[in-house]
């Protein structure tokens, strides 16, 4: 039994309409005979069959549109027919059967449960917004759930999001015009480009403006170009390192001058965390392994959520809590220098995501590809000097933040546990905090929280 299928009649044909059968059931057909008329987007064509035999069954009614390859009829008992290459083998109905539906008509996917049209009927928490709008909202840190959509049926529109974003940032200043180089340099120098006065056309911020704005002694313009000569690749890098040094110098001097620091320290038992980490890493593909730093950062972020007095900024003689926990991560750069870009919403990231975000952030910090919100958005900073082998960090706060958390190396120490002396991995966690914003009691609540959180690594 052979099938007569909807033929491919041209390079652009995907489906065709059966207009007319030129033969009926029981008719004898010969290879090459026209047996049907098919209409395509371009024309109506008589199509031939490639088998000799009896038309046993017409499967498709005239007027039906089917994809190329759909069986239209069965031709049987054939003489010496070989099946067409790759023609799907089919059972052979030798007596009349109910007209079959074609095997694979492109039927639409099952309808999703219909969404009620009336906003009132919408389930709580549901926000009607398109992907563009969602993307925009995410970018501008607007919670769609808090918006009243002005579009049809209460749909949240792009304008709604833009208004909300503008309202949140106060007067809603237009986005600063900053050249890509200036933006990159600002990231490297720890300068918020939005605060730099631009001298370019329409107040565009150029690299030179950022250099001038970088904190540091008198912030001189970069050395004037020497006499034209073969450009040296080394010079700009040295420039950059020197400028960064000046920026760090300025920032840290300000911190030590303006911030009355207090320091707290505690020793955290890392046995549970280390065991859990080993077990996790043993089970995971190598690309998904975690470093102890990931656990420490997550604990620091969760603790900051518990103790919001340490998560935010001191400016104009008062404390403003940060919106979300954005963990500044101190990253030392090759060839010297330091940046502390923000791991945004670190308290909400599951460990694997946090680990990936950390890798990504460090890579981009070292290649000068940080985003603006990362450069200036940190609400509390963590310095993990464990890699360098030190035990205790006595940190300096990054103004205008009010706290800096330090971790040393995870190291084995003799420890009294349940009255017995044992060897346990421990880490020294320290807190440097701004006494203007908080007192020691708050700080000690924070460190205690860190220590507690690290005892339940599976909940981090």
């Amino acid at each position, binding site marked *: 039994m052979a099938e007569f299928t909807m033929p491919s009649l041209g390079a652009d044909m995907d489906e065709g309409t059966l207009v007319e059968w030129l033969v009926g059931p029981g008719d004898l057909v010969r290879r090459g005979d026209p047996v049907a008329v098919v209409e395509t987007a371009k024309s109506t064509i008589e199509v031939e069959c490639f088998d000799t035999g009896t038309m046993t069954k017409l499967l498709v009614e005239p007027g039906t549109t089917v994809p190329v390859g759909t069986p239209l009829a069965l031709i049987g008992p054939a003489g010496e027919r070989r099946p067409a290459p790759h023609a799907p083998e089919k059972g052979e109905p030798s007596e009349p059967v109910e007209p079959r539906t074609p095997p694979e008509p492109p039927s639409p996917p099952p309808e999703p449960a219909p969404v009620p049209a009336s906003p009132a009927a919408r389930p709580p928490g549901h926000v009607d917004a398109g992907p563009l709008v969602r993307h925009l909202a995410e970018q501008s840190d607007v919670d769609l759930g808090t918006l009243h959509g002005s579009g049809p049926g209460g749909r949240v529109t792009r304008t709604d999001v833009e208004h909300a974003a503008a309202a949140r940032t106060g007067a809603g200043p237009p986005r600063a015009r900053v050249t890509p180089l200036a933006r990159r340099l600002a990231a490297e120098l720890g300068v918020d480009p939005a605060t730099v006065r631009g001298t370019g056309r329409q107040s565009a911020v150029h*690299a030179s403006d950022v250099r001038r704005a970088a904190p540091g002694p008198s912030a001189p313009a970069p050395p004037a170009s020497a006499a034209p000569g073969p450009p040296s690749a080394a010079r700009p890098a040295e420039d950059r390192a020197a400028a960064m040094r000046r920026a760090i110098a300025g920032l840290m001097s300000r911190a030590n001058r303006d911030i009355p620091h207090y320091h707290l320290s505690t020793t955290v038992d890392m046995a549970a965390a280390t065991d859990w980490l080993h077990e996790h890493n043993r089970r995971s593909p190598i690309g998904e392994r975690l470093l102890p730093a990931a656990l420490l950062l997550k604990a620091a972020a969760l603790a900051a959520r518990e103790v919001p007095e340490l998560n935010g900024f001191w400016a104009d003689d008062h404390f403003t809590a940060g919106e979300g926990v954005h963990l500044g991560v101190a990253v030392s750069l090759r060839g010297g220098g330091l940046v502390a870009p923000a791991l945004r919403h670190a308290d909400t990231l599951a460990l694997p995501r946090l680990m990936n975000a950390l890798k990504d952030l460090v890579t981009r910090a070292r290649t000068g590809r940080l985003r603006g919100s990362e450069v200036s958005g940190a609400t509390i900073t963590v310095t993990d000097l464990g890699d360098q082998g030190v035990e205790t960090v006595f940190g300096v706060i990054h103004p205008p933040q009010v706290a800096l958390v330090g971790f040393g190396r995870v190291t084995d120490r003799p420890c009294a546990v349940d009255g017995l002396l044992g060897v346990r991995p421990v880490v020294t966690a320290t807190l440097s905090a701004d006494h203007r914003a908080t007192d020691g009691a708050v700080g000690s609540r924070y460190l205690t929280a860190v220590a507690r959180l690290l005892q339940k690594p599976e909940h981090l």
Partner: protein
Amino acid sequence: MGAGGGKGTGATTYREAMREALREALRSDDRVFLMGEDVGRYGGCFGVSLGLLEEFGPERVRDTPLSESAFVGAGIGAALAGMRPIVEIMTVNFSLLALDQILNNAATLLHMSGGQLPVPLVIRTTTGAGRQLAAQHSHSLEGWYAHIPGLRVLAPATLEDARHMLAPALADPDPVLIFEHGSLYNASGELPPPTGPVDLDHAAVRRPGTDISLITYGGSLPKALAAADELASGGISAEVIDLRTLRPLDQAVIASSVARTHRAVVVDEAWRTGSLAAELSARIAEESFYDLDAPVERVCSAEVPIPYARRLEEAALPQTADVVAAVHRAVD
């Protein structure tokens, strides 16, 4: 020997340098022959092939009928059969009559045949305006050809390149188009002795600088260099890059220059819309975005068929002053 054809002393013109390259090619390889309209008895529309017919005879310096499609296609066929033809098309505007052969055959046969049929053909043609030749002899269409995969597109802008680019072009197994800007033929100067093989893959920094990159080629190179001189007196150090090869573009030289100067002006005599200048700007945006301290500027021809009247033609073309102004826009 014509004026200035001497060896190492005295001035040589671009035209003579090109002729010397043709002579050398015809002498050194008997597979090489030159054909085109009036390349023989007339001596070439722009005098480039003057004297070659007498030296090499009518088989190898071959006058053709005014049938661009037929003789360009014949060049392709001869290349397939083992020859190394140099086909001259009088001007780039006329090359459009042969565009079918250049695109549908020369650029395509290698791929379409699954690698069986490389086309070692060289096509030379004149491009550009500046000589009051009006709207059918003045356009800069090399960017159209640079759009086509399978072609190599050259724009010799200096005496050295006029003299030395032909040999590697003939050695290339694939079709090479050489665009000679009409305003350059009379350019003259001392031709330095060759310093080793000439490569067709790299752009050249014709003048180093630190404040801005002027990216250009062909007939616009002298204008860019003049602009750089003028800018230097105002304390702006412009680096001038001569692309030399318009396809494939030397991305590395452009990116490394912009990484140093942080600003770029593209100078291209073609029209701005959908042009090589557009391609260069896009690549700078793609590759060098974080190095840019100002938007990329373009200096191109006005979007008008090039007019005859001198004042209008000058106004339509990029001039040194336009380049200087663009640099100031980028630097200020």
